[in-house]
């Protein structure tokens, strides 16, 4: 069935189809309508879940950590300041190896206050041990939520599904909604391997001495590497069942490209059109969309960028004192390649500033015309 859904409604539908059992969240713009949609679905009994609207994001994640520890399929959603407030619990969810799924709507962090699109909120949580999947459109949002549960519940690593503020969260698009029965076949009921159970008692998170702690960390990293394979398998299976697949990355016109543009989120859709027009003008440019940021799909990225002379990364984020976060990741990934393309890292679109086709054209033209970038960061779309 096709419906016109906003990104936030797509999240709620994904959670509904995945039959989450405990949902806890705190409102924050632009995530709020996810929570409202879910509250209504729960109250109407359409979704057989317990819905908790707690007193802060920290409590939201903490309460579903509790629910997940007793074996429930759980969900939360947040954005920006809310995600920052969850930081402590993000580590706890991953450290406890709980297959929690959350949606984060990418919004700028303060100070100063800003409610618009920016990726720094989720990217600055990159070391918390969560899988991070970035979505390009509302269909991908819905599909990714369902896939996220399947990945999480196989590797016991929590998954963050990320969507752009307003460009997706509040924008309506036609979305194909899979049949509930079909999703049930794809994603069966969750049976926790370990849980707190009076008949089979387990403890979580007791103090671990230096003799053991490191191995706990090793295991999370190991599971992250496994997650790459699992995510691929889940995506293939999803494609077989529903006719749509995404992959950890997607290369578009990369094979003969001299310059490859690297994007995430909705900038990818804008870039598709720009690239098509530049191709018509004879510019040999390709596009690499990155969906999976953690674990970082190193091998796939290397493979996709291998033939290019130059790579232009669009970063709607910044790690102060370093540069764009995707740019940095790509440079690190390419460092042991024999023939390395020159990486140009463009930081732009912060705090909701538009990344327009003409800006993307400028970025590609700059990359074509210059041997090397003027510095680690090229600030694009600055006020004159």
């Amino acid at each position, binding site marked *: 069935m096709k419906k016109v859904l906003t990104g936030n409604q797509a999240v709620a539908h994904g959670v509904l189809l995945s039959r989450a059992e405990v949902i806890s969240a705190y*409102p924050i713009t632009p995530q709020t309508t996810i929570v*409202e949609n879910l*509250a209504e679905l729960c109250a109407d009994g359409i979704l057989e879940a317990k819905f908790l609207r707690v007193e*802060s994001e920290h409590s939201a994640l903490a309460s579903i950590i509790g629910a997940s520890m007793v074996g429930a399929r759980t969900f939360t959603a947040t954005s920006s300041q809310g995600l920052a407030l969850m930081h402590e619990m993000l580590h706890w969810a991953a450290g406890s190896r709980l297959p929690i799924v959350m949606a984060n709507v990418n919004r700028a962090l303060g100070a100063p206050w800003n409610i618009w699109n920016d990726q720094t909120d989720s990217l600055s949580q990159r070391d918390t041990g969560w899988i991070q999947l970035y979505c390009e459109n509302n269909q991908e949002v819905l599909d990714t939520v369902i896939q996220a549960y399947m990945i999480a519940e196989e590797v016991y690593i929590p998954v963050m599904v990320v969507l752009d503020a307003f460009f997706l969260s509040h924008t309506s698009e036609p979305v194909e909604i899979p049949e509930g029965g079909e999703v049930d076949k794809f994603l069966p009921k969750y049976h926790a391997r370990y849980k707190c159970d009076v008949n089979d008692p387990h403890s979580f998170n007791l103090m671990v001495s230096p003799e053991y702690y490191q191995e706990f960390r090793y295991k999370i990293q190991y599971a992250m590497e496994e997650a790459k394979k699992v995510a691929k398998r889940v995506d293939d299976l999803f494609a077989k069942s529903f006719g749509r697949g995404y992959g950890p990355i997607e290369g578009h016109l990369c094979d003969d490209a001299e310059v490859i543009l690297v994007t995430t989120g909705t900038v990818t859709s804008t870039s598709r059109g720009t690239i098509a027009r530049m191709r018509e003008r004879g510019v040999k440019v390709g596009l690499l969309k990155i969906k999976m940021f953690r674990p970082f799909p190193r091998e796939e990225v290397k493979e996709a960028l291998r033939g290019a002379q130059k790579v232009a990364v669009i970063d709607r984020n910044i790690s102060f004192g370093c540069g764009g976060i995707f740019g940095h990741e790509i440079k690190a990934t390419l460092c042991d390649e024999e023939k390395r393309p020159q990486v140009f890292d463009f930081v732009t679109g912060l705090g909701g500033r538009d990344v327009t086709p003409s800006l993307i054209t400028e970025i590609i033209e700059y990359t074509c015309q210059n041997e090397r970038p003027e510095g680690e960061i090229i600030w694009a779309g600055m006020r004159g």
Partner: protein
Amino acid sequence: MKEVTKLIHKYLRHDKKFPHVSCPGCGNGIILGALIRAIDRIGFAKDEIVLISGIGCSGRMPVYVDFNTLHTTHGRALTFATGIKLAKPELTVIVFMGDGDATAIGGNHFIHAARRNVDVSAIIFNNNIYGMTGGQFSPTTPYGMKATTAPYWHIEHAFKIAELAVTAGAVFVGRETVYNAKGLDALIEKALLKKGFSVVETITHCHIQYGRYNRLGTAVDMLKWQRDNSIPVEKAQKLSSEELEGKIITGVLVDRELPIYQHEYDRIRERAREIAV
């Protein structure tokens, strides 16, 4: 020039920050007005005042006034205020918070600020809802009412903010409605002059979110409701708890003397120096 125009020119950033973003008919402006009138009457210089807010519709208020202003994060305004007061005790520190801000995400800070008794005045805008984010229930949404996150009815019970502040140890606690604007002026004036942690819980209406979901009528209807359901504390003392059910008890609930944090801190420093010598 009319008195009110003089106040506008003196205290509002009228040429920079207007039009404001509040909905027409919102009660928040009355609270800001009451604060300005109280400050004007007391005669504080504008630069002596620091007005700090969290975030929410209530949190927008400092944007419009020409004091030292600070717009902080959701629920944490009191912690910023504590820092400011300890670093610069000569400043008059006033905090604006929504009910969600003060008693949900910032509930912990609220009770501890009251217990600690730092010389700060907290003015809480209780509109029974999260206004800014679009009408989700807050810790003061009454049982049985509706919100976007409680589409049938709310199953939790509400905090009584003023009573909470009394129990937590605030030295001055009052409650008033925006309907009784003059009473609110006077109450805020008392709170500002009181040394120690003072709290004014202001009952205000959010007709756009709370009122609309619960069919409470227009802003005027909600103001009339405030008028008809308020009972001054002196009168309330003679009534039974059944008679007070659902009523707003207004006036000064507590006015007491307790040691102020800064003074205690100074005393301990003096004592420590004596011992060191």
